[in-house]
């Protein structure tokens, strides 16, 4: 079974803090994704990566950055957390870009 794990299920941070969300997949997938999920808005793509050290902006990259130093790990960084970044963050991976994505359990981030 494909497994995608995320470093925290729940996280509480203060405004202005630098926040790291980690994601690890164990299926040797080329592609990894970071989404945020807000009620009524579905999933919005923040960034994705199609190879080590390669990244592409998604629909809402502002205020976020990513890092992919190893194939299995994709990190999302909030440089200076703000209250409007309070959300559920979902990581996913896929073998092919257009095909099925496998999701982690999500990290619910609250920024106070």
């Amino acid at each position: 079974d494909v497994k995608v794990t995320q470093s925290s299920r729940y996280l509480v941070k203060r405004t202005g803090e630098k926040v790291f969300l980690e994601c690890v997949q164990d299926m040797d997938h080329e592609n990894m994704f970071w989404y945020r999920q807000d009620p009524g808005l579905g999933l919005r793509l923040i960034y994705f990566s199609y190879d080590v050290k390669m990244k592409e902006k998604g629909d809402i990259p502002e205020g976020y950055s990513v890092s992919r130093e190893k194939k299995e790990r994709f990190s999302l960084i909030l440089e200076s957390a703000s209250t409007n970044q309070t959300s559920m963050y979902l990581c996913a991976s896929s073998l092919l870009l257009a095909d099925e994505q496998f999701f982690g359990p999500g990290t619910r981030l609250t920024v106070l």
Partner: protein
Amino acid sequence: AQSVTQLDSQVPVFEEAPVELRCNYSSSVSVYLFWYVQYPNQGLQLLLKYLSGSTLVKGINGFEAEFNKSQTSFHLRKPSVHISDTAEYFCAVSSDSNYQLIWGAGTKLIIKP
């Protein structure tokens, strides 16, 4: 640009009744269609997908969906729902011209006992 519309934000249905969750997408020459389910406090899990071939796709947990190219729809159906089907369901589409998965806003399935 590709878009996905899930026409209902919530669908209440009695247990053991049939259900249909609607999904429409904007036109594209060649599309790939997906339905995912998200149980409370969990990540998303693939229910079924259409890549090519038969337009009727069967998935897990007794769900099925039909790809209708002329109506640009991919509605999800189950003949008899159970309380365990309580979840949010997401439709998504990608295509040869845009590999990014485009997501609908989700439909919450509410099962009434």
